[in-house]
């Protein structure tokens, strides 16, 4: 069923539930992601894809369920009976190990590109400025923006901003990268430069969960495609199979709608 993995999965989500008032955003989601695996998540608007990502790094914690990343449980070992303060501290460390890339980049507009990249590594990881700067420069080169370290976010195109945002997440040396529709806010001609960076990252063996409407990216890059509907995983498997021969009616109608839109 799922890709066989050696040892523990890099990400393990067990029976996640999340409600917002009357809305059930996650209705019992379990998901294992192996180290180096790329999982693409698709599904209709409001189906709970973003909620899943923010539960995984506990940006907004699930009402019920557990998340493990790299063998560590979010919020620490429940048997240790940590104080609330200790749980918060554990969650901060937990989040620091998970890179997140947002639809609208969310760069810090008052910081230069370089400062965007070194702020958290210095504050959270305790790296020296020199160390953080050296790593940041290497990352900027990797995303093709070596000449932009002094620029401010406002001076960059959307595609450049998103590449800076990816580099900012990578600067924390995360175990996993979460992408929430990273190209949805971009003009069409800027999409490819961002997908190229993500493709490189996947090739280097980064474990990635990508919420996306870019079906060709999902097909080419993802090891597994997960289809979300009304807070549940309806279907999951190799992208090609799901895209060619979807098993569920909901998946079929979603893919048809997507095709009709000419995506």
């Amino acid at each position, binding site marked *: 069923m799922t890709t066989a993995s050696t040892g523990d999965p890099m990400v393990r989500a067990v029976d996640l539930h999340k409600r917002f008032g009357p809305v059930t955003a996650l209705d019992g989601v379990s998901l294992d992601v192996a180290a180096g695996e790329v999982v693409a998540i698709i599904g209709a608007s409001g189906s709970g894809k973003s909620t899943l990502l*923010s539960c995984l*790094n506990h*940006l907004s914690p699930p009402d019920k369920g557990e998340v493990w990343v790299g063998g560590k449980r979010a919020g620490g070992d429940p048997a240790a009976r940590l104080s609330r303060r200790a749980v918060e501290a554990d969650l*901060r*460390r937990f*989040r*620091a*190990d*998970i*890179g*997140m890339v*947002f639809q*609208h*980049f*969310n*760069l*810090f*507009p*008052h910081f230069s590109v370089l400062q965007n990249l070194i*702020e*958290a590594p210095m*504050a*959270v990881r305790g790296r020296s400025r020199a160390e953080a700067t050296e790593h940041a420069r290497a990352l900027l080169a990797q995303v093709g923006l070596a000449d932009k370290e002094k620029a*401010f*976010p*406002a001076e*960059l*195109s*959307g595609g450049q*901003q998103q590449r800076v945002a990816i580099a*900012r*997440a990578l600067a*924390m040396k995360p175990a996993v990268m979460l992408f929430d529709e990273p190209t949805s*806010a*971009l*003009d069409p001609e800027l999409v490819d430069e961002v997908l190229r960076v993500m493709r490189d990252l996947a090739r280097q063996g980064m474990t990635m969960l990508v919420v996306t409407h870019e079906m060709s990216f999902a097909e080419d890059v993802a090891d597994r495609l997960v289809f979300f509907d009304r807070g549940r995983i309806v279907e999951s498997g190799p992208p090609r199979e799901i895209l060619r021969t979807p098993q569920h009616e909901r998946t079929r109608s979603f893919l048809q709608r997507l095709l009709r839109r000419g995506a």
Partner: protein
Amino acid sequence: MNVALLAEYGPALLEGFVTTLLLSAIVLAIATPVGALLALMRESGQPILAAAATVYVSVFRLVPALLVLFFTFYAMPQFGIRFSPMGAAVLGLSIIGSAYLSEDIRGGLSAIDAGQYRAAKALGLGWGHTMRRIILPQAIPIILPPYITRAIIIVKSTSLASIVAVADLTGQAVRAASITYQPFPFLITAGLLYLAISGLLAVFQAWAEHRVSHERRVALRTRQAGAT
């Protein structure tokens, strides 16, 4: 005649002016951090802290400042807490001022996109660092113009202190006027001196607003380049 009178009461007016400056400075120095604390409490997401701050702010924005001053000056001694006129005025005006200032500060904080908090949190940054390095540097330019408007209102409201026997600029001017039966020169002089303080603040505000509108343009460009 007017000149002679002004010369005679000049020192008293000057003393009043200094008292007004001092009172304004002390009230702002207290009300600003308290107002900031109240705003942070309301934005903290901690239900009890937020509720306590909301009650405080609502109450002290809805009751007359003069009533609060009367309370600190006349009513508190009944509970054995006695203040000098200046002390009562500082306390009363700071209570009211902090409630208003917290609203201005909160307005600036809520202008910051929620995505900034999310991005900082996702990077593992704590609340204090996020506020100090990410949120406040963006919020302060937005807060500054309404803050100065409020500061001007607070400076003017210090004239209420004259009613609880503080010899501030208004107090001294009214005293001279009632002794000499010549209200005109003293009230005009007091008015001009208030105008000088407020005017200075207004000039600072104009400069700050110019700076902010520049930063807004930059921020707007960010958003246009970002979200479609």
